[in-house]
């Protein structure tokens, strides 16, 4: 199916719940409301013309005013992709978990929680995966600052008086 057909199929099925598409993305990107994410996901997987059976990646993007939870889906049968995006609040990001639909989301959601602090509601075991369990803060957020020390291990970079953000390539 082409991107237009997938979009049409989804819009026919869910109408208002599809909030829109993201034109800056080179893949078909569909923004959905967080309440309908589970329903849409299940439809994406089970509908025979879509059959997105392979969850490729769950990731997050911090846009400083909001945090996006991004789900990349693949279909092994039809060989097409879909990107689902859910906007989350920046202060206390929450998003429904799709683990019950694709088990693959388990670790990806844990990682996104670890890095962005998005609470995936309904996730069976939402704990940090890459960082230590008692790590503070969410490293991939744009406003994240390295802690001065961790269990007595000093952050030498900051102690030497050099702030890590001095050189900013996007300035």
């Amino acid at each position, binding site marked *: 199916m082409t991107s237009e057909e997938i979009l049409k199929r989804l819009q026919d099925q869910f109408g208002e719940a599809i909030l829109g598409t993201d034109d*800056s993305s080179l*893949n078909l990107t569909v923004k959905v409301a967080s309440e309908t994410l589970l329903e849409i996901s299940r439809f994406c997987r089970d509908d025979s013309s879509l059959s997105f059976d392979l969850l490729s990646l769950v990731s997050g993007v911090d846009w400083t005013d909001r945090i996006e939870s991004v789900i990349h889906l693949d279909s092994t049968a039809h060989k097409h992709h879909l990107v689902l995006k859910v906007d989350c609040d920046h202060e206390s990001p929450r998003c429904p978990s799709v683990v019950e639909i694709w088990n693959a989301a388990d670790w990806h959601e844990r990682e996104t929680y670890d*890095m962005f602090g998005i609470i995936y509601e309904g996730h069976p075991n939402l704990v940090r*995966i890459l*960082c*230590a369990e008692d790590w503070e803060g969410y*490293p*991939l957020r744009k406003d994240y600052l390295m802690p001065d020390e961790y269990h007595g291990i000093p952050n030498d970079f900051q102690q030497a008086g050099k702030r890590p953000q001095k050189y900013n*390539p996007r300035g």
Partner: protein
Amino acid sequence: MGEATNVTEVPLPQGGTVAVKPGDFRTEEMLLNIGPQHPSTHGVLRVVVRTDGEIILDSQVHIGYLHRCFEKVVENVTWTQVTPYTDRMDYLASMYNNLGYSLAVEKLGDVEVPERASYIRIIIGELQRIASHLMSVGTYGLDVGAITAFLYCFRDREITLRIFEEVCGQRLNYNYIRPGGVSGDLTDEMLKKIDDFIDYFLPKIDEIDNLLSMNGIFIYRTAGVGILPLDLALDYGCTGPVLRGSGLARDLRKDEPYGLYEQFDFDVITGKGEKGQLGDCWDRYMIRVREMRESCKIIKQALAKIPEGKFIEPKLLKNVKVKKGESYLKVENPRGELGYYIVSDGKKGPYRCSVRAPSFCNIAVLPEISRGCMVADMVVIIGSIDIVMGEVDR
């Protein structure tokens, strides 16, 4: 026999209860750390297993020992400065990490790649696949105790590494494939060497087959162990040899060709359950051995028709202009689908670069397929999934 009379519920220390029949005495369960410092966890994987005797009842994977904040670091560098960081992820297939990233950036930045560069990428990429599979096959031999097979594989891998060294000066972290092309040309002499290597290597695959793949004890150890059904593999997002081992012919080089792969003739190898059941460790292992032959086939074809021309626009070596937007692109890494999700805000470097690491997804299925097997099988199963911890932890 078999009638459950007087079944009592006994609480377990980890919660829940279990039914105990009369005459069925229960031994103590043990929590055991396999890894991070273990010879067969291929780096610093830690698996906490709950065992009853030698039988594994449950396992839990802990990762993060090698976490180097790739995704945070690359937010502070320019587009071309990212490639050396990608090298360090899957350090056994660094070329592919470069390739995946370069393709994603090229797609977003509308960068034209010279045709010669595309051919070089395919030759070097497939050579990298051979090197990576040799590593995987060899260390798998090591896991089951066949040390000689490991050294045979390393002998041949050494030749590929020398070729890489000649091509880009590095043996492990190449930083060779850049957005827009490759960082250096392949001379005719190098192409000849690669051709010679393929001629030399094809009979060596038979040697590996003789020594390891068809060895009775090896089949005894791996066939019918760690069976991964296809639906479970898809459910856990497994890709690459792990998914193909379960019988699905999904290979991005065929399904969604990138580079110039649609011009090449090769087969997608799938598991057939010849020695045990479909999706067992032997199937997953054998796919790698057979894929090496297919890679040789592709390299031969590419060597035959590589055109003359530029290998990169020199100004692209400094930096690439990328417009605002985002792209997600996957390549078929030796371990599975390596995906790069790149978000650009139109500045000099990526706003966000997220990686779908194939080993990260593949290893998540370990607790499912290792349940009920023995400690010795655990090692065999971990080896058959073929993880690289640098990529799992990034």
